[in-house]
C-alpha cells in the first residue's frame, strides 16, 4: 500500500468508527480498523460483529494494499498531527507507515485477512428515507430503549414500515415511546428490531437522504459515503398498539418547558434508586410533590385547564423528563385514567404524524 489523502477527510471518517470498535474485546482484531486501498479510494471499516460501519476517502493510490490498525491509536495520531496531506504506506509486512508533515509513525497492525468479512446486502432493493426525519425519530424514542441486556429486555427499537408511514417504537418495560412519520411508498409486512448501538451511531451521521436495505438477518443504513450494517435483533416486541391506552379520559394540556422545570425541581428530592414523585391533578392545578425520609420534601404546582375529578398517581420524574426534553412543541397533553393506569403523553401540534410516550405509574 502506498497512498496519499487529505488528513481532515480521513479524520472525519475514522472518528465515527470509534463508537463501533470494541474496546474490551477478547478478539484483538475487533479493536482495529480495516484500511484497504483500491482504485482511487481508501476503504475504511470497523465492526464488533453486531454492528459494522464502512466508509471511504478519496486518495491517490500508487499501490493497492490492506492492513488492520488499532482504532484508538490511529485516531490519536491523525488527530494530533498537523498538515493537510497524509501518506500511508506498507513498506514492511504488518507495519503501517504514516507520514504527515514532518512526522513519521510506524505502527504495527494485523493482517487484513484476520478482519471479519462484513455482511454484504448490496443486492437488496434500497428504500429512500429522508435522513433528517429519520434521525429526529431515533432521538424521540432512543431514551426508552432498555440498557439492560437480559432475556426480558429488548435492547433495540422496532422499525415498522406501514402504509400510513414509518414507525419507530422502543420500550424498557416501564415506558414506551412511539413515533410515526409520513414517509410513504414503502410496504413491508413485518417490523424489524434495530439494536440500540446501531441507532446510537446513526444519530451521529449527517446527510440528506438515507438508503435503507435489509436481508434476512441484516439491516443496512447508507448515508452519503457511510454505511452502517447491523444484525437484526431476535425477539418478540410487545403488541404496542394494544399496550397504548385509548380510553384515558382525563386530559390536561400544559406548557412543556414549565412542566419540565417543575418536574426537574421536585425530582431533586427523590432517592437515587427509588425515583418517584407524586402527581396530583385537581381542577385548575397540577401539583407535583416528593417526600423522601432521608432528604425531605418538595412541592410545586402548575396552573392548568383541567376541570374534571381529582386524581393522584406516582411517576418517575426521569421518564417524564426524557420525553419533555426531546419534544419540541410549546405545549404537551397528558392523558390519564386512574392511579393504576398509564399516563400517556403527546406533543400538541407536533411536526410528526404521531408521537406518543406511555409512562407506567408507580404505586406509592
Amino acid at each position: 500500500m502506498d497512498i496519499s489523502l487529505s488528513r481532515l477527510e480521513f479524520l472525519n471518517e475514522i472518528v465515527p468508527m470509534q463508537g463501533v470498535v470494541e474496546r474490551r474485546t477478547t478478539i484483538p482484531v475487533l479493536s482495529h480498523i480495516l484500511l484497504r486501498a483500491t482504485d482511487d479510494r481508501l476503504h475504511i471499516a470497523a465492526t464488533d460483529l453486531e454492528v459494522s460501519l464502512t466508509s471511504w476517502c478519496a486518495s491517490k493510490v500508487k499501490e493497492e494494499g490492506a492492513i488492520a490498525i488499532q482504532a484508538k491509536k490511529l485516531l490519536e495520531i491523525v488527530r494530533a498531527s498537523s498538515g493537510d496531506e497524509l501518506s500511508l504506506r506498507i513498506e514492511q509486512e504488518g507495519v503501517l507507515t504514516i507520514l504527515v508533515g514532518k512526522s513519521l509513525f510506524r505502527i504495527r497492525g494485523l493482517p487484513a485477512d484476520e478482519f471479519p468479512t462484513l455482511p454484504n446486502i448490496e443486492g437488496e432493493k434500497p428504500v429512500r428515507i429522508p435522513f433528517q426525519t429519520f434521525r429526529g425519530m431515533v432521538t424521540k424514542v432512543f431514551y426508552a430503549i432498555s440498557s439492560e441486556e437480559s432475556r426480558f429486555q429488548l435492547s433495540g427499537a422496532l422499525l415498522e414500515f406501514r402504509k400510513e408511514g414509518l414507525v419507530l417504537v422502543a420500550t424498557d418495560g416501564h415506558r414506551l415511546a412511539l413515533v410515526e412519520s409520513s414517509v410513504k411508498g414503502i410496504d413491508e409486512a413485518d417490523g424489524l428490531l434495530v439494536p440500540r448501538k446501531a441507532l446510537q451511531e446513526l444519530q451521529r451521521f449527517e446527510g440528506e437522504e438515507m438508503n435503507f436495505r435489509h436481508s434476512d438477518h441484516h439491516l443496512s443504513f447508507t448515508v452519503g459515503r457511510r454505511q452502517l450494517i447491523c444484525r437484526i435483533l431476535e425477539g418478540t416486541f410487545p403488541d404496542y398498539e394494544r399496550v397504548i391506552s385509548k380510553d384515558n379520559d382525563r386530559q390536561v394540556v400544559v406548557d412543556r418547558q414549565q412542566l419540565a422545570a417543575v418536574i426537574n425541581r421536585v425530582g431533586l428530592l427523590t432517592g437515587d434508586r427509588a425515583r418517584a414523585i407524586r402527581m396530583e391533578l385537581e381542577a385548575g392545578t397540577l401539583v407535583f410533590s416528593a417526600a423522601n425520609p432521608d432528604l425531605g420534601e418538595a412541592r410545586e404546582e402548575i396552573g392548568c385547564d383541567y376541570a374534571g375529578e381529582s386524581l393522584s398517581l406516582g411517576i418517575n420524574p426521569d421518564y417524564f423528563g426524557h420525553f419533555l426534553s426531546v419534544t419540541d412543541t410549546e405545549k404537551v397533553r397528558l392523558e390519564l385514567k386512574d392511579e393504576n393506569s398509564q399516563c400517556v403523553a403527546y406533543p400538541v401540534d407536533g411536526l410528526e404524524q404521531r408521537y406518543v410516550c406511555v409512562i407506567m405509574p408507580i404505586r406509592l
Partner: protein
Amino acid sequence: MPQIRILEDRLISQIAAGEVVERPASVVKELVENSIDAGAHDVSIELESGGKRRVVVSDDGRGMDADDALLAFDRHATSKIVEFDDLEQVATLGFRGEALASIAAVSRVELRTATSPGDGTLVRIEGGRVKRAEPIAHPQGTRLEIASLFFNVPARRKFVKRPQTELRRALEVVQGYALAHPEVRFTLRHEGRALLETIPTRDDGVGIRERIAQVFGAPLSRNLVEIPLDFITEEEAITGFVGNQQTTRGRRLFVFVNRRLVRDRAVLASFYRAVREEWKSDDYPALFLFLDVEPREVDVNVHPQKAEVRFRDPTFVDRVGTALRATLAAARGEEPAPLRVPRGMPQVQAAWEGLGGRQVDEAGRQEAWRPIASGSPSSGTTSSPTLSAIGTPTGPQRDSSLAVESAPGEVREPAAAYPPFGSSGRIAQPTWKPEEPRMVPLSGRSGEARPFRILGQYKGTMILLEGPDGLYLIDQHVAHERLLYERVRRSLHAERSTSQTLLTPMLLELGQSEALRLEELAAALEPCGFVLSPMSGGAIALTAIPTVLSIDEAEAILQKLATSSEELDGQGLRQKLLDTLAASLACQAAVKMHHPMTLDKMERLVSELFKAEQPYACPHGRPVVLVMGDVELERRFGRR
C-alpha cells in the same frame, strides 16, 4: 348415670387419626410409604383440589389377598412387625399399623388390590365402616382412593389450607420419597396435570444425582459435591451430596435416615454448624444426606409421623458432622487459610478516639478532658483539667481521666457517664456533645479491652489493624457494604415500598411447586411492591415490581423466594424481602476495591463497623474481618 364411659372404637379411631393424618399430604405420605414397603417399582399419585377432594395412590407392589384387604383397616393391623423385638429392627417405612385405620376413619376409602393379575379384591369403607367387599379383576398391586378427607370431622377440616398449599405439601412429600428411592418411578398428577414424573435410575451416587436432576433440574445437580465414600463402614453409611456456593439460593435440605425423610434437629444442627465453621457463612447450601444404619441403631418410634429419630450411638452425629465438614471444604474449593474470622462477639466497652494516629490522638485527648473540667464543680478555678479530675477522688470522672492519662490498654468509661455539662464554671462551655457509649467487640481475653491501631491500607483494598491479639484485616468494600446494609434496611423498614407498574407483564417460568409457592405468597408480596398473578402451566405474570429494583433483580429475588422452603407469613416475608433489597442496594453503593482512603476515613469506617449489629459478616455472608493471631504469627516465624 355414670359420667365416665369407654369410648366407642370408631371415635377412638377418629381421634387417633388426628395424630397420623393432619392433611392430604399426610395421606399421601402414608400411602406412598405403604407402596414402597410393598416393593413397588411404579407409584402413581393423583390429587384433586390439592388432595382435599381426592387422593389416589396406585402401585405395582405385592398387593393383598381378600382377607388382608379387610384386615388392613383394623387398628394396629400391620404386616410389618409381629412382636416387640421386631420394633428393634424396623426396616420398613411404616410399622405402627395405624395409618390405614386412621385414614379410613375420616374419609371415604376405596381399595382395589390383587396379589396376582386378575385375582383382586375391592373394599369400600366410609367413616370407618365397611360398606362393600367383593372380588374384582385388578392388575397386581394396590390402588387406594381416599375421597372427601375429614368429611366427618369438620373441626379438622378447618385446619386444611387452600388447595395450592396442600398440593405443594403433597408434592414436597412425594419429592422426598422420589429422592430416597431412585429405583422407583413416581408420577404425581393434579387434576390431570403432571407435576412430577421421574424415570427409574440406579440406586447409587450416580443414580441419586440423576434423580435430583429429575426432581430439581440439572443445574442444581451439577453444583453438588458428593460426600466422600470414606464414611461407609460395615455398620453404617453416610452418603449423599452437599451443594457448592451456587446452591445457597434455595433452602433445599433433605436428610434421610434409612431412606426415610426426617427433620432431625440434631443432624440439621450439625450441618448448620459445619457450614458456619467451614464457610464462615450463614448461607446454607443444598443438602441431600443419606444416613444408613442398622435398624436397631436408630429409634424411629419417637413420633407418629416418624419425622424425628433417635440414634442409639451418640457419637454418630459427630461422624456425620465430620463427613459434612470434609465435603463442605471440598465444595468451597479452597484450602483453609491461616486467617480466621474472629470467633464470638464479646462486647467490651471502649473508646475509639485516639487510636488511629497522632492527630486524632490529640483531638481525642482534648475532647476527653474538657467536660470533666467543666462538669466538676469541685475543681473550681483549676487550670489543669487533669489535676482537677484527680482532685475528685470518686465517681466516674476519675476513671475517665485515668483512661485518658494511661497507656492504651485501659478501659475508659463511656462518655455518657460524664455529668451533664452546662453547670457553672469559669471554663467556657464545650461545644461538643458527649457521644453514646461505644461497644467495641474484641476478640481478646475476657474483660481486657485493648484498643486497635490502624496500621494503614493494603493495596487500596484492605484496612490493617493492630489488635489486642493479632493482626486484623478488614475488607473495606464489605465493611462499608455491611454499614450501608444496616442503614438501608432501617430506612426501608420505616417507609412504604413504591412499586413500578410494568408496561407488559413479565412472565416467570418456574417449577410447579415453586409457582404454587409464589401463588401462596402473592398477597403478602403486594405490600412489598411485587404484584403477581398466576397463569396456566406453572407460569406467573409479574405486573409491578419494587421501584428500587431492575426487572432482572426483581426476577432473581422471586426465583430465590420460590425455591426457599421457609414458611413465611406476611410480616416475616416483608422482613426477608426488605433485607434482600437492602443487601442488593448496599452492595452497589459501597466503596469499591482499590480505592485509597485517608486515615480519617478509615478511622470512621472501622469505628462505625464495630458499632454495627453484626460487624463480622457482610449481608451475603462473606467475612468482613479476618484475624491472624499473635500465636499463629509467632509460630510461623518459628518463635514457638
